[in-house]
């Protein structure tokens, strides 16, 4: 399988910087957790600050921010996680694209290990070191298809991931007080093909440490996808459970968010064909989120896209009316510009005639 590669903007005022693709695990979390426009706003305040602080080596700033964010609810107006914005900034700097990546990563290892030695009680210091080891692992794996990975590189990939896991285990008394360590462990475990039950245990422990870290819910989606270790039924059971656990804060919202995330990561326009996503439940989830977090123009776009996929024309027409000219194509799935055009055309047409959006191909039954 081939993970997609997000492209973050270069740091403001630092034109010499070239950013590199994030690792698959980091990507999964970021993509699931961040609606684009809200992310843009929060980036200015959090992601860019974290990115730049790490870039210039300002550990004290990062540690202060992390101590604030690692406890309690820190949500953007559309409910996106500020903690995730912060992590995205760290990941972005670690993943910086340079001509010679190996010595760059080795220096980052040395730097973060020095920080961890100087600040043994800082969870962030330990998490940062483990993050760099994970990035080093992915520098061997690369972002391409598994068949494109040189055989020798798999060994280094696994070695670095195992080093990261052992490091976090060895510093569990400090590192695992911070749910960022659990998110990272889930990424490590996914790369090392850990059993889903083990990943589930990590997620549970992380939620005990920080029940408000919704990234832990998103991080569990990846291993449960059919293309990894799961299938549609397992994924559906998980999403329903996660929705129940978060009902007090988001109503049915997490059902919509997690399935929208699954669409981003695997199902695309075939979400309703190849997964067990239930549109009425998803719609309720969107409505619950919009009621609780009305300042969510990106989610409104995503909602409209899902309505189109679900062939719910009245809802699509209503949402397009609300969106007006504030279309954000990034929320409309793969080949987004054409996706927007097709859905708008179908919304204007009458009947289920030739203008209806074509059905996406259904997966083989074994996929379900």
């Amino acid at each position, binding site marked *: 399988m081939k993970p997609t590669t997000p492209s973050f903007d270069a740091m403001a*005022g*630092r034109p*010499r*910087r070239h950013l590199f693709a994030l690792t698959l695990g980091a990507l999964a979390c970021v993509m699931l957790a961040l609606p684009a426009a809200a992310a843009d706003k929060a980036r200015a305040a959090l992601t860019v600050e974290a990115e730049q*602080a*790490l*870039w*210039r*080596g*300002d550990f004290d*700033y990062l540690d202060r921010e992390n101590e604030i964010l690692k406890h309690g609810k820190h949500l953007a107006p559309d409910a996106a996680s500020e903690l995730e914005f912060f992590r995205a900034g760290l990941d972005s*700097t*670690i993943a*910086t694209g*340079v*001509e*010679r*990546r190996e*010595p*760059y990563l*080795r*220096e*980052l*290892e*040395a*730097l973060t*290990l*020095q920080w961890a030695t100087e600040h043994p009680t800082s969870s962030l210091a330990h998490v940062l070191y483990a993050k760099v080891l994970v990035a080093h692992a992915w520098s061997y794996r690369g972002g391409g298809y598994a068949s494109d990975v040189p055989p020798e590189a798999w060994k280094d990939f696994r070695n670095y991931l195992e080093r990261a896991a052992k490091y976090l285990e060895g510093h569990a008394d400090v590192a695992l007080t911070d749910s960022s360590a659990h998110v990272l462990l889930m990424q490590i475990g996914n790369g090392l093909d850990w059993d889903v039950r083990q990943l589930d245990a990590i997620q549970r422990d992380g939620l005990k440490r920080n029940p408000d870290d919704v990234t832990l819910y998103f991080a569990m989606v990846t291993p449960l996808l059919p293309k990894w270790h799961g299938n549609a039924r397992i994924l559906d059971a998980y999403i329903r459970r996660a929705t129940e656990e978060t009902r007090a804060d988001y109503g049915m919202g997490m059902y919509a968010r997690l399935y929208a995330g699954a669409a981003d990561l695997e199902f695309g326009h075939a979400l309703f064909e190849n997964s067990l996503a239930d549109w009425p439940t998803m719609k309720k989830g969107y409505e619950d989120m919009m009621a609780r977090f009305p300042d969510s123009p990106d989610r409104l776009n995503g909602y409209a896209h899902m309505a189109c996929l679900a062939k719910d024309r009245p809802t699509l027409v209503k949402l397009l009316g609300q969106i007006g000219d504030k279309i954000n194509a990034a929320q409309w799935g793969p080949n987004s510009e054409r996706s927007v055009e097709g859905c708008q055309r179908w919304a204007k047409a009458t009947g289920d005639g030739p203008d209806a959006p074509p059905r996406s191909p259904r997966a083989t039954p074994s996929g379900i």
Partner: protein
Amino acid sequence: MTGGLHSYLAPAFVLDKALVLDPTLRAAADKIGAEHVARIDKLFPVWLSEEASRQAVNKIPPTSPWIFYAVLARLLNELSLWQLEPGDATYENATLAALRTSTRLCEISGDFRYTDFASRILRIQAMPVAQRDAALDGERRLLAHWGQPRAALAPWPDPLPQDAALALLARGPADAANPRLALSPELASVVFGQQQDYAHMHPVSRCMLQQWWLRQNLHRGMAPAAALSAFRYGTMLSAVDRLGTAYDKPGADDKPGPGVKPPYPGIAMRFQVTGDTTARVQAGVDGKQKASMVERRIEVEGIRGVRPVAFENVFDKAMLAFAETNTGRYAKPADSTPQQIKYLWRLEDPKPAAKPGDKR
């Protein structure tokens, strides 16, 4: 002529709008800068008159561009002296503390040939608020020294801080076998990720390397005053940094042929710089000849009573290239005592008639 001199002075006291500065500090710094520029503007006619009188014995007319260049040399040298001169103990301690801890001291912007004042104000911003007024007073006192003789300055660090820093970094990553402070990701991307040499680094990256080297020196037990002096030499803007490309094409004197006299730098001719320079040459383990400067004894028209620090490195590039190119004559194997060579820089036609339009 005074207008021309002002145009070289004023930019050094402009705080670029893009600099992230506390408004109160910016206002206070702007006031100090404006007062200083006004004071020096008033001194220019005096300096020009002094220079005209001195050069009259050689029948140089008072309107000659040579008078202007001599006073400009004096101005450029005051700018450099100011960068090297230490403050009082309180100022020095506060500066060291800022350099040890802040990661924002190199976020300079604007015209990188004139970031002198901005760099100092960024350091003051990194100090605790309670210390800033005292530090600004320290700045006023140091600026008041312009035009006066200075206490003896520390000599040039040997090797240069950037050479020593990059030599240590070339040994490999920071680990048990090579204990050193690790670089920030930004600096690591420049030094290791892009393998840029110092000459091609962005001024911000150069500043960061110098700051890292200061921390590394302190970390390994160097006396704070020595570490700070090395930092000041490393970050000092010399006449070459400010004006070099106006007189010497980049790369022009990089590789003189064996036995060929090193070219006299254009900036040295323009400012009538003469003197003796000594370099050390030794073969590295890779067999390549590596030269470094040992001594610079320089005289500059218009600079008297103080070291001409702004011009002391004016022959470095030509001298080092000459020493490294003439390996057969001067080099010794890596394990032997390095060979020293001395070169005398003399102008055969000291003051050719100025071309029309030479005067600013």
